[in-house]
């Protein structure tokens, strides 16, 4: 299968990390690029990230997820509440939820790509170890064009 792939890396691990607003702006910019591609192209955006988690912190093997943080963020994504998401996804708030939680910023970037549309599906499984698993899908209508 000949499948062109454009890899994009983000720094969510080593501070200084860009604020959520910038992640969202990058998502909006990526969307604008995709929309300018020839209409016959089908484009999928696949990203990985995570919700609250702690690595190398106070519980070496137990992980440490903050389910309350996760649920709140998931609700904001589900409601397509961009401003709410940007307000909540501050560095301080994320670090408070777990020292590696800024990996969540990749979801903020995806929300930028998805536009103001609500996800078509969203699933979350809280894990006692490591991070919770959050799956979000935005199926695009109009043959993938945003109208």
């Amino acid at each position, binding site marked *: 299968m000949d499948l062109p792939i454009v890899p994009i890396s983000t720094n969510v*691990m*080593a*501070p*200084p990390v860009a604020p959520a607003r910038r992640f969202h702006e990058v998502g909006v910019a990526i969307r604008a690029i995709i929309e300018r591609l020839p209409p016959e192209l089908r484009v999928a955006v696949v990203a990985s990230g995570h919700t609250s988690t702690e*690595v*190398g*912190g*106070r*519980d*070496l*093997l137990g992980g440490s997820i903050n389910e309350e943080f996760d649920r709140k963020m998931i609700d904001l994504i589900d409601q397509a509440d961009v401003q709410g998401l940007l307000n909540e996804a501050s560095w301080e708030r994320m*670090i*408070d939820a777990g*020292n*590696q939680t800024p990996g969540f910023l990749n979801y903020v970037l995806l929300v930028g790509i998805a536009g103001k549309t609500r996800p078509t599906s969203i699933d979350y499984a809280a894990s006692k170890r490591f991070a919770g698993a959050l799956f979000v899908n935005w199926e695009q209508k109009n043959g993938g064009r945003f109208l």
Partner: protein
Amino acid sequence: VSRYTVNKAMREIALQRPAQMAFAADPAAFLQGRDLSAEEMQALKTIDYATLYKMGAHPMLIVQFVMTLRRGDVRELAKEWNEKIAPLGRPDFST
């Protein structure tokens, strides 16, 4: 600046087998010539993860550094780790 140098040394040791072997054989020689404070040098040489954590080294790199070099039961390490790290809160680890 030297916080970054600490992170870089730990990353090399965690990811590169030759660096890991060189450090295990002679930590002082491995760290020689790096822009590190005496305290940072000492903490790295003695794998003093609590001090590294307190100084603001990257927590994820500390874990990898320690796990790469550790011997013995990981549950024993975890017990000691949690006792030492939990009281230290969350130091700023920006570089």
